[in-house]
Every structure is written in C-alpha cells, then in structure tokens.
C-alpha cells in the first residue's frame, strides 16, 4: 500500500500517510507486543531458571541450558513430540481431505442445503471439552456406542478401546477429525464460491467429465483456500490439549501424551516453571519452523498469484 502511494503521490504527502498508517497500526502492534512477544520472551527467560513453585529459593537457581539438555534426554518429552507430530500430520491431512469433500457437497445447490450447511457446522460449534466427553462415552467399554454398533448387544465381545495404547491414539485423532473437518470445509467453501459458474458451463459445453472439471477447474482455483485451511489446521493441531485432557489424561502407557499436555502437567500440576517453560519454548520453535515451512513452500502460491 505504501509502495503504491510513493509511486503516485508527492513525497511529503506520502510520509504523512505513512505516519498516519503507523499511528493506526500502533495499537495493534502494542497489543501484539504485550500479549504475544512479552509472554514468549518471558517463557524464554523462565526456561533458563530452575523455579519450582512449591520450593521457595528455587527461583534463584540458574540453569542455563540445563533444562534444554534435560529435555533433550527426556524420553517422555521425545515420545510426546513424536505423538504431537504424528497427530498433526494425520489429523490435518484427514481434515483437509474430508473438509474438501464436505465443501464440494454443500456447495452444490439442492433442497435443504441451508439446513445441511448449518448441520455440518455443528461439531465445530460444540466446545471441545463437551465433544471430548462425548467421544469418551462413545469409546467406553461398557456402554459405549461404538461397541454397540460393532458387536451388537453381546457385551462379552465388547472392546476397551481406550485401554489400548495404539487405539486410544487413533480415538483422539478420530475425535479431532470429527470436530474440525467442518472448519476446514467452511474455509474451502468460501474458496469454492468464488469460482465463477461460467467456467463450469463452458467446460460442460466442451464435453469435460466430472473428474476433469474437478481436476482442471475446481482444484486449481480452490487451492489457495485449501492451503489456508491446511495452515490453520496444522497450527491449531499443534495446540491439541483438551481432547487428551478429557479423554485419556495422557494414558494408557503414556501413548496419548502430547507436548502441550506434558508442558501443562509440568507447569500447572507440578509447578516446574523452568522445565515446563523449556517445553513451551520447544513448542514455540517447532510451530515457528512449521510456519516458515509453509510460507516458504506455499506462500508464493498463496499470496503471489497475481505476480
């Protein structure tokens, strides 16, 4: 915007506009500094110390890199990082694919579309804690819906899904996919609606089949909103916490312990501010890396389409 004004207007006029723009941006910047940068820097500072809330005197311990060295050797943290990454990759991929499917369906015009669109959004509107509780009931070994659907009314073959380490991890992914696919769908629906109908009409006249129309018109044009959905979902999936907190508390066999839950346990349950902050810093850098990756790999396509 400023570049454009420089080209067209006089210099004095431009600098005045720049100043005005800065003034308008200042409150936003201030809020960002206060609520984003300050906590991050403070976490960084805490992670260098050994503060334990229940031990007076511990706030004077200087750990330097020790917390990070300990974190590096901490097999639990490493496993939690692995769980988090698998969760992010699998759930995001499923959500974006499923979301695209949902978006394609609710983009068509048919009777009752308004109702269906609203219905699709219901899972996303339910608070995660409530949804997690619901899924915990569904997977319950005695009265869970899943057992009933799979095995009928014979309780002797009922499975304890959440008692199995691998299955409980799958259960959390299922719950997340159910909950947030519609969010991905919503973003991509917006993208779909920007595609002009004329393109499809002329494709039809040219005799293009449904798959060809999807591949050559829909997919390229919906790509930017698909990437935005992907970015949002990835960053959001990194923060997975409530599902684990309600459904499994990290168990069984620590199979569903994710970094955010581990960090929460360290800071809020155990009072290890130093070590817990080191975990937060790790999460921060991993998310940063993901952001940079997305902006590098996809940013051009996303924002630079007209250049």
């Amino acid at each position, binding site marked *: 915007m400023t570049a454009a004004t420089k080209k067209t207007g006089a210099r004095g006029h431009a600098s005045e506009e720049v100043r005005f723009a800065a003034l308008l941006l200042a409150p936003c910047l201030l809020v960002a500094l206060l609520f984003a940068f300050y906590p991050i820097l403070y976490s960084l500072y805490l992670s260098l110390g*050994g503060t*334990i*809330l*229940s*031990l*007076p*005197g*511990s706030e*004077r*311990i200087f750990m330097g890199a020790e917390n990070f060295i*300990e974190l590096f050797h901490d*097999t*639990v943290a490493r496993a939690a990082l692995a769980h988090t990454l698998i969760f992010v990759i699998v759930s995001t991929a499923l959500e974006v694919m499923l979301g695209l499917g949902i978006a394609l369906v609710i983009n068509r015009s048919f009777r009752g579309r308004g109702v269906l669109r609203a219905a699709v959004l219901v899972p996303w509107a339910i608070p995660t804690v409530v949804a997690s509780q619901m899924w915990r009931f569904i997977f319950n*070994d*005695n009265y869970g819906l899943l057992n009933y659907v799979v095995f009928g009314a014979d*309780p*002797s073959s009922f499975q*304890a899904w*959440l*008692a*199995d*380490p691998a299955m409980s991890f799958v259960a959390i992914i299922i719950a997340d996919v159910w909950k947030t696919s519609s969010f991905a769908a919503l973003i991509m629906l917006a993208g779909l609606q920007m595609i002009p109908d004329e393109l499809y009409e002329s494709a039809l006249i040219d005799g293009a089949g449904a798959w060809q129309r999807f591949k050559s018109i829909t997919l390229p044009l919906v790509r930017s909103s698909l990437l935005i959905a992907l970015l949002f979902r990835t960053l959001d999936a990194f923060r997975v916490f409530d599902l684990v907190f309600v459904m*499994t*508390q*990290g*168990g*069984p*066999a*620590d*199979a569903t*312990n994710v970094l955010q839950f581990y960090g929460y*346990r*360290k800071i*809020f*349950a*155990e*009072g*290890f501010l130093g070590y817990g902050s080191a975990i937060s810093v790790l999460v921060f850098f991993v998310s940063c890396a993901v952001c940079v990756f997305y902006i590098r790999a996809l940013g051009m396509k996303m924002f630079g389409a007209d250049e």
Partner: protein
Amino acid sequence: MAAVLASALIALCIITSHASCSDPKRVSPNVLRFVTWNPGHPEVWKSIIAEFEKRNPGITVIREFGPSSSTSFHDMLAQKLRNRSPEVDVFFMDVIWVPEFAAAGWADPIDELLPPAEREQFLPGAIAANTCGGRLYGVPLFIDAGMLFYRSDLLRKYGYRPPATWQEMERQGLHIVREEARTGNDICVFSAQFKQYEGLVCVMQEFILGNNGRLFDPETRVPEIQMPAAIEAVRYVREHIIGRLAPRGVLTYQEPESLALFVQGRALFHRNWPYVWEIAGDPRRSRIAGRVGVTYLPRFPGGRSRSTLGGWQLGVSAFSRNRKMALGFIAFLTGAEIQKRFAIEAGRAPSRKELYRDREVLAANPQFKEMKTVFLNASPRPRTPLYPAVSDALQRYFSTALADPDASVEEEAGKAADRIRWIESMMRRSRAQ
C-alpha cells in the same frame, strides 16, 4: 469518539474492579470461604454448615466447589494459593499435598489448634501426615485406606473364606467365575483403578508393599521401584490381573467406573476406599445390597497386607484474612460430634480414635471395628514437596508396564527411577540456595 472511548474505559474499570479482590462482598470479616470438592452427600454437608452458622451468628460460610478429581482440584487450589488469593480461608487438602503446601508457604501452621493432649485423640498416621518439620499444617477430617470388598453371597456359595493372598483370590475367583458362567452369570474376578492417574499409584503401592517392596526409601530418599520385590509385584499385576482377572477396561477406570462394575454385580472382588461400603449397601444405588463383605487387602506369600493411606485434611490459607474464624470452623468440623455425623450419615471413616468404639458409629458401619487396624497401619505415599512430579513419573511407569505389552518392566522402572532422582536433585539444589 471521545465519548465512546470514555465509556469503554469506564466499562473496563468496572470489569476489572469487579474481578479484583476489593469487592467487599467477596472478602469480608463475616464471610468464611471454604474451597471444597463437590461432596457426595450434599444434604449432610448443608445441614452441618447450617449448624455452624447457627452456633456462630453473623458468620456466613461460602463454599466454592472445585473438581472432584483430586488432581484437578489440586491444580485449581494451587493456582489460587500461588496467586495469594485472599478468597480462600479454609480448604481441603489431599493427604499427599501437605509437604508441598507447607514448603510453598501456602498452608499456615496451625499447631495451636491441636494441643498435644488433643492430638492424641487422632489416629497417629493421620497426624503424622499433616506434620512437616515438626509443625502441624492440617487437621484430618476423613481417613481413607485401600480395602478389599467382595461378594459375600458368592464366596459362601462356593465355601470360600475371604482370600488372604492375591494367589488365593485368583484361585477362588477363577473357580467361581467359571462355575457362575455355566449358569449364565457373566462376572469378572476383580475390579480396581488402573487408569494413568493418581489412584494408580495408590493401587500399585499396595501390591508392592504386600510383596515387602517399597516405592521410595524415606531416609535415603532413593526410589526402590527397581528392586526385585517391586518388579515382581508389578509383573504379577501385568500378567495375572490385567485382561485376566480384570477386564482390560480397568486400564481406563478410576474409582466410579470400577465401583460401577462391582455394584452392578459384575465383579467378584473390588479394591476401593471405605466410602464404598455405604454405596454398595444401598439398594437404590447397588444391585448387590446386603451381599457385600469387606476385608484387608490380600498380600503376596511372605508379605504383609498393607493399604495406601488416603484421606482429606482441612488447612488454613496463609493468605486468609479470617484466620481465627477459619480455625474455629476447622475445630467444629473435626470435633467428635460432627465427625460422628459424617461417619453415620455419609459413611466416612473418622480420624478420631474414640469413634471406632462408638456404638452408633459401629452400628452404621460395622466394618469400622475390624478396619481400624487398617487405618492404623496405612502407608503414606512418598512424602515430598515435589510429590506431583514424583507421582507423574510413577503413573507413567505403572501405566506403561501394565498397558503396553511390548514394554520391559525393568527398563520402564529404571526410567521412572532416573526421573525421581532428578526431581530429588532439584530439591537439594533449591534447598542449597
């Protein structure tokens, strides 16, 4: 524009002043704030608190309910105390929190409340659990210890006496379950709490103690989970109980789920706390009312039956502005009269010795008479201000050893022991500061 800004500012001021502690209605010399979990017998609590208010005119007790899970309640309460909130006067403390709350300076010492002669009236283990560095930080109200509940009708039917060892329970159980299955009665041998949470530490400590092992040496402060006795006990649970005597679902069970299995008549034996007696005997909440017995927990051959000490204490916040009133409230609740009511009306095991000889208490809870020795011998969990961290390591170890068939018990025990040693080293370092 200016008007909008001004009104926004005023609104902001109202919001912040409302949320701050200066609101006279929230902290006042006549209001006692009691942070508690949602009690099982609301009507009993209500009438007892009304009684206190009647005897102390002008005082209002406001109860603030936290989550009923001990861990979640701890996190909420610790948050308030960490922020030095004056909105907490009296609070419930789980028995494992006392060293932490004392070291952090959150619980105020209250030695004057119980002079030595009065202290004698309580079960010694419960007083010891509330004492840190020679000072008293809480008064025990309810005491808990693990017990074995069983189906007295089924044991009688097959001519068995309550089992003394885990192996005996296994033999009896497998026999009874097999026979019952023929008559179409689908029942499992054992139900208890094996989810990855605090209760898992309680349950597993009982198995380990029953095999002459220990979690932790309180003198040298060294973890002992890698010792053969402890490993053997864990291995027994992994190989004989999970998925065999108990359904695999117990790996997701806390107290309510495991109790449900028992009171629905679908488990023969059940490990739980004393409150179960009252529920299991109530026909409205139990299908096995009148067919329940209770005994000491089984042991391993050559070991002794030991229970984990649990229970709830009342503490006074160091940031309370109503200390005197708070002490009066605690003295009232933990007095013999009110404890007796809790025992009779809510089935809670009292912390005062004399009540175990009280005819009315025993009429309502005949099991207390025999169980007194269990309470007297109950074993504390590791006593450390960093208990939540130690427990986290133990929970992870036990859950992995029980739920993950590929895990090596020794290896997992080693990891947990390393972690506990690191936690202990952090404590030594902050002491040295």
